[in-house]
């Protein structure tokens, strides 16, 4: 059972709209939620779903990400039957080329998949915050004897034009895929999570690679091609918290969502489905004599001596006495000096904020403070 499905995680994206946060790291390595990186979510999900073999496809600024993934031990993917393969583009007998698209990235690693010889392949992206048991999706895939199962989220009709939309029949079989439709026929948005029967995937990728007009993209090329071939495509509806953190505003929002006492992401619930992460060697957090911390999330290794409200504070961050941090995200090692006022901001890691700075006092829009 354990090796029947291999996960391939697409982690090469730059995340251009995150600006300085992705200047030196790929988007999946961006910090989130006080102690995590975005990639902790899909990898923890995979680990808790019983998946022991994972390939991580990296491209943009891959060094930090590769080091972070290591042998997969942060997520327990270093067991006796595990593979945590880091797969950047490589030079081969035929030459060398970057990954041209999501489908091409998998195509260039068909040898890796052939070695694992899986029955099913799970394609994931490293850009989303959510908790999901992929084993349930696999059961659904098998039950429907599908060639491809696409995880979908039921969004509002207004939002639907921002997503790739799956148009389905009553039995949730997919008959059409529309990228960002002006007049959506359905509200089932693709989450970029696919389970392929490997044989179908392999054939489709080999065929796609030979097509010079293809953009080598799962949404634009592979799915329409499979639909044209009358393959069995099904939509699997996911219920729960899911967030694409592609922009500064959405990254900030996703952090603020954690402050909701109802805990929509279930970070403090489901003890057997904890989000696994790097083991930081910091002291427990210290809250100073004159500090105030309200409605916030603070990680170990942080030192809070000032006023913190409705904020997310990472390890190694220092908030001095007399500093005010409100509705903000303070990333690892950032230092907010006495007198400073930070409102509606994301402060990037290791940024020093001197005491004279008053950032975003009106707080109308979220701003990023970086080096």
């Amino acid at each position: 059972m354990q090796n029947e499905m291999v996960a391939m995680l697409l982690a090469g994206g730059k995340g251009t709209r995150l600006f300085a946060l992705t200047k030196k790291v790929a988007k999946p390595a961006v910090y989130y939620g006080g102690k995590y990186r975005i990639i902790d979510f899909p990898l923890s999900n995979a680990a808790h779903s019983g998946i022991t073999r994972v390939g991580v496809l990296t491209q943009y600024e891959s060094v930090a990400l590769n080091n972070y993934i290591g042998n997969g031990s942060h997520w327990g993917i270093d067991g006796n039957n595990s593979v945590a393969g880091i797969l950047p583009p490589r030079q081969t007998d035929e030459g060398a080329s970057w990954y041209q698209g999501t489908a091409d990235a998998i195509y260039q690693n068909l040898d890796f998949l052939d070695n694992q010889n899986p029955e099913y392949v799970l394609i994931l992206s490293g850009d989303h915050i959510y908790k999901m048991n992929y084993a349930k999706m696999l059961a659904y895939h098998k039950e429907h004897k599908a060639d491809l199962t696409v995880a979908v989220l039921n969004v509002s009709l207004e939002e639907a034009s921002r997503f790739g939309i799956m148009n389905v029949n009553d039995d949730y079989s997919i008959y059409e895929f529309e990228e960002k439709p002006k007049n959506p026929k359905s509200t089932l948005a693709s989450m970029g999570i696919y389970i392929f029967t490997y044989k179908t995937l392999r054939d489709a990728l080999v065929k796609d690679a030979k097509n010079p007009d293809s953009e080598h993209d799962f949404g634009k090329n592979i799915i329409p091609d499979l639909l044209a071939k009358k393959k069995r495509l099904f939509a699997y509806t996911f219920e729960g918290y899911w967030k694409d953190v592609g922009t500064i505003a959405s990254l900030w929002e996703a952090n603020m969502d954690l402050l909701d006492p109802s805990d929509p992401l279930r970070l403090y619930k489901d003890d057997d489905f904890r989000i696994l992460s790097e083991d930081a060697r910091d002291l427990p957090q210290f809250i100073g004599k004159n500090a105030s911390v309200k409605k916030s999330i603070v990680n170990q290794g942080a030192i809070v001596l000032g006023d913190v409200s409705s904020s997310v504070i990472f390890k190694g961050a220092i908030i001095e006495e007399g500093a005010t941090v409100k509705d903000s995200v303070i990333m690892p090692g950032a230092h907010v000096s006495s007198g400073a006022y930070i409102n509606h901001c994301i402060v990037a890691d290791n940024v020093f904020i001197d005491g004279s700075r008053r950032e975003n006092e009106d707080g109308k829009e979220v701003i990023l403070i970086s080096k």
Partner: protein
Amino acid sequence: MPHILGLANLHGAPKLGPITERRSIASTSFLGRYAFVDFTLSNFSNSGIDQMGILVEEKLRSLVRHIGNGVVYNANTKRGFCSIMYNEQYAPAPAYNNDINNLIENHWVLDQSNADYIIFAPCHLLYRMDYRDAIKYHIQKKASVTMIYMKCSDGKNSFINMDELKLDENGRVLEIQKNKGAKKNINVSLETYIISRSKLEEFLEFAKDTSHFFSIRDVLSYMTGQLFIHSYEYQGYLRAFTSVEDYYDFSLEFLNPKVLNELFVPEWPIYTRTNDTPPVRYGEEAKVSNSFVANGSIIEGSVKGSIIGRSVIIEKGAKIENCIVMSDAHIGANAKLKNCIIDRYAQVLHCNDLKGDPKKPLIVRERDIV
């Protein structure tokens, strides 16, 4: 550097009242996220010692749970090891259950190790020490044994009943005595010994021939006249945890940044088991000051001058002052706690007012519901 085997020695470790009823001090929670043994093993690891053992006297369960396979303490997970050494044979016979008999029983650890020297270090003495210079000194002096000590100018009030070394002008150990509080200036023993493998084997033989009741400390004390026992001075943070009151006082002392910075420095990480608990969540009415809080906790009430362990829940209206709350404890709404130690998994749900004396903290035992 020669090959070294570091042995954490739990034999003869003091008991800390109710909190060590079901565990040894080695696996007792410290500062919310550590266990005492972490400091002993991190001293080894950070000194480049990758071969380790733990000489266990009793109460194995909690320690095994904490140590796991021990690889968090190892620089190289294949060459290094961290073996739990338990004396099955003498465990039910306290009189015989000493470190020497343990070493004889678990001689396989010495056999599998290529160590030229062995360091014994306790868990109830908390200090931060790079052993490399002491080992060099031991080799250079051609000593049989080197005992680590610290000069203390408050011998009348501190380190009472602990070993104290009488030294000659060259640093040779003439006698090992107990500090009875009679002198101001003492050389307090860190109960940390460096010894060559061959000398240790001689000790084991000597103890076998002489008395099955002899511990390493007894052998050293007995043989000060015949052996060349040298001393090496340690300077820095040192506390001896010999009672539950010590535990309470010396833990809360860390809320003073000066004390904290003596033991914790960036270049000397303390390794411990990871739990993957989420960051701490503070509620809208939370009021927290001068406290350590470990991950996984949810704080809705007020916390002052306290140490809160992992995954503790403190409900709205609860008031915690000068307390140590260990992992997975639950403090119900509106409970008022002052000068208490709340052990693991304990729940304070029905008693709304628990108050200990600053000199004698009130203790709620593991898993108790009050």
